[in-house]
């Protein structure tokens, strides 16, 4: 089986509010998969359905080929939904011992190892009531990974973390996918972060899938050749409608196969080419174009 998540026509309504509106989504096994969307897009609702916390209004959702209510399936899954909270009188170590007992299965988890991996070794015996949001997030990630799941669902894992913490978390997530073979499903509002760490992304808006694909493919879709030339006006003249100026440079909206001919034409027209490089669009641009287009259509 190559897919870890499959949803078909998945809907969830809270009274008149529709959180998911017929979502069809397939998340393949392996790598880091980002689920993006503005607030209210349905990301957390999707995760809660996958984890059996809520039931869908209609449609189906499978996780590792099983139902969300199937206990053996869920025990192969780790999760952290929003900022985690814990019984305040327990220490970080005790929280993991408590969850280890709840998980059962007879195999004791490597609790000191996970505390070390999330950077909480020094605070292992401190009560969680004094933890910062970032420390809670780290403990939540350790709790999610405690039993070496095949899939881990992390909802905003870097929320409330300082920059070094975010960097550590990014490295941990990549290591989980690359070295431990865990499929990481990640929701985050930090789009630059997602672009760095994810292999594929799905963009949700108003409970529907509006874009899905490999990050490298999505960001190359709006790819343009950025030219630094000695005579920008002349270069724009050669490019015509395909050219646009940007901060003294010229952006050429052409295909890669057209590049040699363009550079030849520029040189023949007396334009000196100082630098030429391909620039893609970033995930943030795609995110806003997709989610705002939906909003505009809805307004129309």
């Amino acid at each position, binding site marked *: 089986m190559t897919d870890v998540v499959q949803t078909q026509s998945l809907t969830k309504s*809270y009274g008149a509010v529709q959180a998911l509106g017929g979502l069809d989504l397939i998340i393949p096994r392996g790598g880091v998969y980002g689920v993006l969307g503005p607030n209210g897009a349905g990301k*957390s*609702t999707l995760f*809660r359905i996958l*984890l*059996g*916390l*809520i*039931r869908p209004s209609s449609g189906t959702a499978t996780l590792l080929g099983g139902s969300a209510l199937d*206990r053996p399936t*869920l*025990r192969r*899954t780790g*999760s952290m*939904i929003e900022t*985690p*909270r*814990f*019984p*305040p*009188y*327990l220490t970080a170590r*005790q929280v993991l*011992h*408590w*969850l280890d*007992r*709840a*998980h*059962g*299965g007879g195999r004791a988890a490597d609790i000191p190892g996970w505390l070390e991996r999330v950077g909480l070794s020094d605070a292992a015996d401190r009560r969680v009531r004094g933890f910062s949001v970032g420390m809670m997030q780290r403990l939540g990630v350790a*709790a999610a990974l405690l039993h070496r799941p095949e899939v881990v669902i992390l909802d905003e894992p870097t929320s409330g973390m300082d920059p070094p913490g975010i960097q550590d978390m990014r490295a941990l997530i990549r290591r989980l996918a690359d070295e431990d073979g865990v499929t990481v499903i990640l929701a985050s509002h930090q789009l630059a972060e997602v672009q760095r760490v994810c292999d594929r992304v799905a963009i949700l808006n108003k409970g529907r899938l509006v874009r899905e694909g490999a990050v490298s493919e999505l960001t190359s879709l709006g790819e343009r050749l950025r030219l630094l030339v000695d005579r920008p006006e002349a270069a724009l003249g050669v490019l015509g409608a395909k050219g646009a100026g940007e901060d003294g440079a010229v952006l050429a909206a052409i295909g890669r196969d057209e590049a040699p001919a363009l550079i030849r034409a520029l040189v023949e027209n007396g334009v000196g080419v100082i630098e030429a490089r391909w620039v893609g669009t970033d995930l943030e641009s795609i995110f806003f174009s997709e989610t705002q287009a939906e909003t505009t259509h809805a307004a129309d």
Partner: protein
Amino acid sequence: MPPIDAIRAEGYRLLRNRAVLFWSVLFAPICAVAFNTIGFLVMRANAAKLQASEIDLPMMRGELDLMEAMIRTASSLAGAPEALFLTVGAATLFACDYRWETWRLLTPRDSRFNLISGKIGVMKLLALVVIIAGILAGVAVSLIQAGVFSRPLTFDGGEDAVVRWLGLIGLAWLRLIQFALVSLLAAVLTRSLMAALLVPLVVGVVQAALPSVLVPMGVPPDSWLTVLLSPGTAYQMLSSPLVATGPGAVSLEAATALKAWLSLALWLTVPAALALLAFSRQDLSKE
């Protein structure tokens, strides 16, 4: 299959919640021992005055039958203080996963049936610990009383004393569990710690007042309606014959015993079943 993992996890967590353990297990016995000791010392200090006033105080003289004292203690183990303080522990056990939003950590790890069953299992153990603490406090009070008033100790209790004592302990245990299961139902339906704490107390007060409310309406205290609606009455009916033997003995007819057992069984199963049903379909999008 018993929910062993859920019981181990809940037990582990409860044992580390020292404040709750103190209030639900230790506070009432400590108070009982302290207040009784103070009372005994005050009485001894004023023994001469009391004798001059010709007030007869059997507790200050003669032999002290420890077994009889233990039976008396066992008959009061399911009283209002025990129920009240057990509810502190039960409400924490049942409602705090809503308060701390920790259901989301547990529901992917075990079935909802097992999670609630595990909590019920730990609550039953907690009720047993409350009872054991009460018994130990009762024994301590008797020993202190014997020491303060220089009364010789005996260990008799009369006919079938140990059986009666064990019967009273078993009934007290069931009564406390029944009381705490109302807390479970309140916790699941309202997701509120306050409700889990207060609803069983309010229900308990209403049930205690019910027989006296129904009598003027022509419903006798031992009627089916009264007994089924008031598990406290059922508990009293079943425990009274075990407390005293001989001339003060209370007999229990088979039909009355059946009513009482049915009432206890009803209140031991229905709240738990309703809570399980509600929790199995509960939306945990926001605990």
